[in-house]
Structure formats: C-alpha cells, structure tokens
C-alpha cells in the first residue's frame, strides 16, 4: 500500500456550461480522514462521485488506491466503499438481506460473508435488528446500517458524502464516533464531505475547503485556523440590544475592521486587526449610543477561516451559480444580514 490513497490532478466536471468541479488537485494520504468542506453546491458531491467512478471526469485525472478512475474503474471499485448522501438500502428488505445482496456483488465467499455481516452488525450494535426490515428503523439506525453496508467489501478507502445530514444530535454523535472507529480499528482511509465546520474540525486530519468548484485552502484544521489568527487579528462578538444599521455602518467604516457579520438582531461578530482595535471599537459603539451588554473575545473557527478565504459566509452558493441537480427549493435562504 502506498502512502497516497487518492491523487486527484486537475479534476474537472462540467454539466453543459456549468463547471461543478474546476481543476481540483489534491492528495489524500493513506490512513487519514480527509474532509472536503464547503457549502451545498460547491462541488463536493460531484468530486466524490468522480473519485468513486460514478461520474466520468470531463477533464483531469485521479488515481484511487493506485488505480486510474477512468482506465481501471473496475479495479477502483474493488477497493472502495461509498456512503452516499441518499441511503443505499432497500426499505422492504431486512438489514441482513441488504448487506448480503451487496456482499454478493463483491464475490465474497458465502461463509466469509455471513461472518463478516455478523461482525459488522455487532460493530454498530444492531445484531438484534438484523432480520428486521429497514423501513421499521429510525433514521439513525438506518444510517448505521447504511455505513456498514459500505464496509462489506472491507474497503481500503471509504467515501462518506454528508454522513450526518438530517440526523438528530445523538445520531450525529454516534455516526461521527463510528467514522472515527472505522478509521482507527480498520485502518481505513476516509474521505468525507460536509458543510458543517464543527464536523470537519472534529473529525478530519486535513481539510480541503472547496468553493465554487475550486479548492481554496488545504491544511490541517489547526494550521487553517492559525493561518488567520497568527497575525494581530482578533475576533469579537458583541451583544447590543439596541443594535441598528447606523451602528453597523460606523464600525464597518473603521479602517482596522476587516469584517462585520450580524448573526441576529442583537449579536454582531467583528474581525479586526491592530493592538488598539478593541478600544477603537468600544469608542465607535459608545459614540453611536450602543448599549453593550456582553462582549466576547472569540477563538478563530473554521467558519472564520472560510469567511476570510472566500470572502463570503458558508451558505448555499446556489443563489450565485445553480448546480443543475438542485433546481428546487428556495435559493440560498438569507437568514442574516451581512454588512461589510
């Protein structure tokens, strides 16, 4: 096994005029958890689909487990597992029947497969549910089966596309724990996509931030955060009950202030630089008659990293460039006002 599990070079996918993935180059090391972080429609899923041989790249190339996704797609498939955004399971079949069907497609000998299914079921503590139909399960239980379904062939590389999407907090924590265990106990290389900063921060060894089809930053979560906090930048969150537009405009006009984001009617996040930035901010707020109830000095989060690098917040980039598959639904709900 080589050190590089996935090597993508200039990987590009176009749907007509729309470029979903735009000349993306990155490497995933064997044994790591690699995260593709970005808003919906940024091209994460399309990238995963190309790497898992479900979609043919328009341009560029990629090797997965040492095999070319275009020329040796059959070989690639033998070494990978996929947990897609939509669950790959048949609701009217039992958990065991689902695992068995997919196991058979990998030509696993019958006795080996039976043992492996039993082991996988106990791995996620679902033994007693093995012979129950999927449609009797809760979403969290379904997702556990969905994840182990991708492990029947004991893949070297596991793709997880938004594995915690739509799960309640408890199931989300369970699945994250499961991902970690798969990575540690099976030495499986994991590449996961998420739009949740906290999830990427918590799970991933390295993160590629993807926006509008391009990887805009790639490093460990720590380095990414340090890259913007290593300077004299500070992050504040003010709680101001009488916050108004004039106040926002005036702090925005301060030279040392880099960004101003209003989260809700009374909270505002400010990024600024310079040693005396706090004093300047307080003065500006007081001059406008703002009543400051609380102020917090924030640690930089991946959200701030994303904000700084892309110049906009993490939210569906649908409003700007609609991906062809995502036509329905309100484009990019604007929940918070942004002043810059």
């Amino acid at each position, binding site marked *: 096994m080589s050190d590089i599990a996935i090597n993508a070079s200039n990987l590009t996918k176009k749907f007509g005029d729309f470029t979903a993935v735009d000349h993306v180059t990155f490497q995933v090391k064997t044994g790591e958890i690699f995260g593709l972080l970005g808003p919906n429609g940024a091209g994460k899923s399309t990238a995963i689909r190309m790497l898992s041989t479900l979609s043919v790249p328009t341009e560029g190339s990629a090797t997965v487990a040492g095999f070319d996704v275009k020329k040796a797609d059959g070989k690639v498939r033998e070494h990978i597992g996929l947990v897609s955004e939509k*669950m790959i399971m*048949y609701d*009217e079949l039992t958990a065991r029947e689902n695992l068995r069907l997919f196991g058979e497609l990998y030509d696993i000998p019958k006795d080996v497969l039976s043992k492996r299914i039993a082991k996988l079921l106990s791995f996620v503590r679902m033994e007693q549910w093995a012979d129950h*139909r999927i449609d009797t399960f809760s979403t969290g239980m379904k997702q556990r089966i969905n994840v182990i379904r991708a492990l029947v062939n004991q893949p070297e590389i596991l793709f997880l596309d938004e594995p915690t999407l739509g799960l309640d907090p408890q199931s989300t924590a369970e699945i994250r724990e499961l991902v970690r265990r798969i990575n540690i106990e099976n030495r499986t290389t994991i590449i996961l996509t998420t739009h949740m900063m906290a999830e990427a921060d918590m799970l991933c060894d390295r993160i590629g931030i993807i926006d509008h089809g391009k990887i805009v930053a790639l490093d460990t979560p720590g380095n990414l955060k340090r890259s913007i906090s290593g300077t004299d930048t500070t992050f504040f969150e003010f709680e101001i009950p009488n916050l108004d537009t004039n106040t926002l405009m005036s702090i925005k006009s301060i030279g040392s202030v880099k960004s101003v984001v209003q989260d809700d009617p009374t909270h505002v996040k400010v990024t600024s630089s310079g040693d005396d930035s706090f004093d300047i901010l307080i003065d500006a707020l007081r001059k406008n008659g703002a009543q400051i109830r609380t102020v917090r000095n924030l640690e930089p989060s991946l959200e701030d990293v994303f904000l700084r690098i892309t110049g906009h917040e993490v939210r569906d980039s649908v409003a700007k460039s609609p991906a062809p598959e995502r036509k329905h639904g309100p484009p990019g709900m604007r929940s918070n006002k942004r002043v810059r």
Partner: protein
Amino acid sequence: MSVKRLLRHTAWICWKDLLEFSRSKMRVVMLILMPLLMMVMVGFIFPSGSSISHQPVAIANQDLAVDGISFGDRFISQLAAVNNQTGMMDISNATGFDDIKTMIQDGEISGGIIVPANFTSDLLHHKQGSITVMTDQSNPQMSAMMQSVLTAVIEQLGTQVAEYNLNQTYNVSLEDAPAILQPYNVETKGIVPGNPNYFEFVAPGIMAMVVMMSLMTGLPHAISYEKDMGTLDGMLVAPTSRWAIILGKVSSQSIRGLIQGFVILVLAVALFGVAIHGSILLVVLLIMLTVFSFVGLGILITSFADKEETATMVMMTLMFPMMFLSGVFFPIQQMPAFMQTIANFLPLTYAATAMRKVMVLGAGTPAIFTEVLILAVFGIVTLTIAVPMFKKAMSR
C-alpha cells in the same frame, strides 16, 4: 468478467427485485388480478354473435299474396321459429320504411326488416326476392347479428321454396321426391375444428400485450426509481458489470410478465374454453421472444428519461397506441389503410399475430417465421442502441 460471475450477479439483482416485490401482499394480488380482470372484461364487452339477446326488431310485411300463397308470411313464421330457438330478437310490427326509420331514431328498436309487396310474385316468377334490412348504425354489433339470423332463416326458407316449386311445377309431392336441391346453401367453415369465439381471437393478443405492459411499466420503475432513490449507485459502485444490472432488472421484470402471461393462458383455457391448437412450447418461446423485443425499447426510454415519472409517462404514451393498433382487440384488417401502415411498424402487431397463429390456428415454426424474424431484429436493433445509451446515462 467471466460469464459465470455475470450470471451470478444477474441472478442476485433479479432475486433482490423479486424479493422486494413479494414483500407487499397487495402487489402480488394485483399481479394475478390484473390479467384476470382484463380477460373477464374483454370477454364481456366484446360479445360474440350468439351472446346478443332480446334486441327489439320491427317487421313490416307488405307482401301481397299470389293465389293464396304468401312467401312473406312464411318468411316471417320461419323467422319467428328461428328466433324462438335463439331468443335474439323481440319482434314487433311496423308499417313500412318510414315507420321503422322513426322507431330506430326514437330508440324503440335497433333494427327492422321489410318484406316488399312483390316478394311472393318475384319468387314465383323465378326472380330473386329481395328483403330489406335496416339497422341502427350506432350499434355495430346489430348488423352482424341480423345477418346471422337472416342467413339461418333464408336457408330454411330456401328449402320451402324448393318444395313448393317442385310441387307446383312437376306435381311431385315431397314424400315422393328422391332428393331436394336447395336453391342456395350457406356454409361457414373454419380451418380448425369448432367455433372460434372472441376469446380465442383476443387471448393470444392480450398475452403478448400484458407481457409488453409489465416490461414497459416495470423497467422504468426498476431502473429510474432506483436512480432517483440513489440505490442504483450501490450497484454501480460495486465491481459488477453494467450488463449484470441490465440483465438482472430485465429478468425480474420478465418473470413478472411471464407470470401474468401464464395467468391469462390458464384462465383462457380453464374458464373461457379457449383451445390451444399449436404447441405450448412454441407459445412459451414466443412469450420470451416478445420480452426480448421490448427490452431494448424499455431501456432506451429509461436512459433518456431524467426521472421515473418522465419514463412512466413516455411508456404510457407509447403503450396505448400499441394496445389498440396492434390488432390485440380489433383485427387489423378492419382498420383504415393508413392505420394498418402504422400497425405494421409496431412490434406488438407481430407478437400478437404470431401468438394467434400458434394458439388459434395451430401454426408451426415455418408459418410464423416472418414475425419471429421481425421481433428478433427489432429487439437486437433497439438493444444495440439502448445499452451504450444506458451506460452513458449511468455515468453522468
């Protein structure tokens, strides 16, 4: 990929589909109920001649007797005698053409018979006697019924005219005559023994149609639905051939189609008295060929359609003209020329014709060679186009 492995994957995918299908009792019941209803329905809405009864018919007898002899009266009493046996008509009286016309327009009667004034005299003077039959044209079954009754009546009347002429001209009584030659004789004969009924006409066509329907509606569900649900990705990401997926899906749908086809076959034989004159094996092989010829079309549409709903709508749009134009319910020969031309381009036409030839006429392989060839070529051509399209659609 070895053939053995391909077939094993095919079998698993097919098994999965059937297992999923069997998990709903409702679906299994409908699988049997649909062909049953179809057969019962067509059996009763398209009646054969003998099943019509008590149609109101008016008779206007304007015949004038010659020397006390009226063939018009004899015709009517003969008609009444025939009608007593069959019970097809309820006979009433009318005065003439206009009277009958009004009665038909008012919906009181469905047909009328007029015996003209010179009927007896024409017959006695060796001229042809003519009878006018009027039918309600909005009821196409009427003319067929009237014709069959009149044929029987005239046949018997002919014997009487012959007897009378013998008696009058040669003074020979019926008892003395060594033989009587009837002036005319009607004989209907089929090429297989027994009287064919509408079921025998329609059952082979329905078999071909149901096989087509379950394939055309089943394939978009089996493939597009899984594509929509995302479960198809699970198979596509496994190291299995695209062929195994296609073959697995096709075989599960074919098995459903075959089950329905056999339900019809069994019902037709057991309940509706349809006799199969040809080889059962040939019938089975023909059903399989029908499946083969429609598979390509099904996959092609599935590949083009973005969603299951689209695929189903396209299938429905194609299916209905095929059902009615392919001679399943109505003989193609009855259709206008341009419709017949269209029918000649529909594969179901050949499937129905071949099936009918084997089941009703007892034809062997040579007699259906053309149909078999056309179905096979249609299947090969559509599959050749469909498979690359499908593979392309799957890797979008």
